[in-house]
């Protein structure tokens, strides 16, 4: 497990496939090897009763990179707790429906191709929310390193080499908070949830204003 960084790629054409095709071409020019597909999906559950300190959200995330694990991310507004559980946890959720109920229309997923470039793994995902196209999300993972502090500027250089100026020179806030910690699969999943929430709240086409890509 290396260090992962997520980046929303602005899509001005609002079509999806044209931009992913562009990224595909650029990454293939870097001697990339395509190695299969990936999917990260996220279901969100909200508390039914509005009593006692606001709505609590629970995001259930599956990542095809860790197929036997279900991640449950609890967001109380003030605090986030990420639980890694066996996939059987999914069967537990119907038992909790007196407290938490699924928002079916918020089901969101990022799906696409996976590439290997040297020691980097790049995943170019198309984000769809309940069937509607939302944007492009690129995950870049650098395998040999364990903490963002050591390899952030190196990863930024790599990301800028095929995504250009949409990669900001500053460290993303999530990584900034865990800059010196050892990166775990939970950190990757939490970044996905963060980006998914941006997609949910933002307009259907994030690339509508290419000068200000949400980040």
């Amino acid at each position: 497990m290396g260090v992962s960084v997520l980046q929303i790629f602005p899509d001005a054409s609002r079509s999806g496939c044209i931009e992913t095709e562009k990224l595909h071409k650029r990454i293939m020019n870097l001697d990339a090897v395509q190695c299969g597909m990936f999917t990260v999906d996220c279901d969100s559950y909200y508390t039914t009763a509005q009593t006692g300190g606001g709505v609590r959200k629970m995001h259930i995330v599956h990542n095809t990179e860790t197929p036997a694990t279900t991640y449950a991310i609890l967001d109380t507004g003030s605090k986030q707790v990420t639980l890694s559980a066996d996939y059987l946890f999914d069967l537990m959720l119907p038992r909790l429906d007196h407290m938490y109920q699924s928002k079916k229309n918020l089901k969101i997923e990022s799906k696409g191709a996976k590439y290997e470039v040297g020691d980097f793994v790049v995943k170019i995902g198309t984000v769809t929310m309940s069937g509607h196209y939302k944007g492009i999300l690129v995950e870049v993972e650098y395998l040999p390193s364990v903490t963002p502090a050591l390899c952030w500027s190196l990863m930024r250089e790599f990301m800028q080499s095929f995504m250009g100026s949409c990669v900001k020179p500053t460290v993303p806030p999530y990584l900034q908070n865990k800059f010196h910690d050892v990166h775990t699969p939970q950190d990757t999943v939490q970044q996905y949830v963060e980006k998914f929430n941006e997609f949910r709240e933002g307009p259907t086409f994030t690339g509508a204003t290419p000068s200000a890509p949400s980040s």
Partner: protein
Amino acid sequence: MAAPECSSVEVLTTNLNSLRTLRSSVTLFFKIIAEGPKEENSNDGEHSFPEMAAKCLTDVKNNLRDLETHVAGLTPSTVPVSLGNTGLLSLDPSPDKLPLYHQLLDCYTYVEKIHCYSTLMHSLLSGNNLKRSSVSLPLSTKRRRPAQLNHSVPQQQVDMLIQGINQMFQDMNLNISRPFGNNAVVQVTLGQVLRAVVTFRGILIEWVVVRAYNEPLVDEDGKVDLYTPSQYKVFQKVTDNANAAMLNFCSPGFSDLSVRSFFTWLHSFVSLFTDVCKKCNYHLHNHMPPTWREFRTLDPFHEECKP
């Protein structure tokens, strides 16, 4: 030192000679006995059979006395080859393994000689590489054996050296273990960047493997993994470079210095992912960070940007 060594060889030769004389006189005696007395009519010889036998026996006695006095003058060998557990091989009674021990001894002696010669050569060559013809060193020092051989040093000396290096760097942790008897294996953890396994033979570095921080140092059986290369390209490259550096730093005359310089060089990889190449000012070239460190200045370079 040379003189007693020579004389002891001479003593050994005379010993062997007297042993040979003894053997031949004994053989002669048995030959006379076996042939028995000559036929009666051939008593033209000046010596009769009992006389002949008695004369031979006296020879044997004299030769034996000679040998005994010579042997008493011999001193037992003072420098035994330390073979560690392998020395026990000589005690193996099974006949098919018997030659193994002698082959092993030959091999060790050979290697020792090579090391010895290479040390002498090194000191000669490093003395003055412009003056080719004349060797200024006096003859006696040229023939001198080095006091200590690099590949068989006491464990304490290696331990002390490693301990000293361990205290030189705060963020580099060295852990010494001896899974194969006498020779040390040092497990290196450098910050959160990499882990390395350095195999020693005596005080010489024999082999280096560098792996990522999150790759295991031990194999499935819980033993130190000396051989498996890293699964990441960047550390495979660093492993190659580390072995090159190990050979570059190796100098038989100053082995502890060479080990210390190697570890100083290895320590410079603490900034493997954060340094930019000195030449091109970029992190990445061919998707690799600068995996080369200049030997003296420790400046980072890409493989392709090497000066």
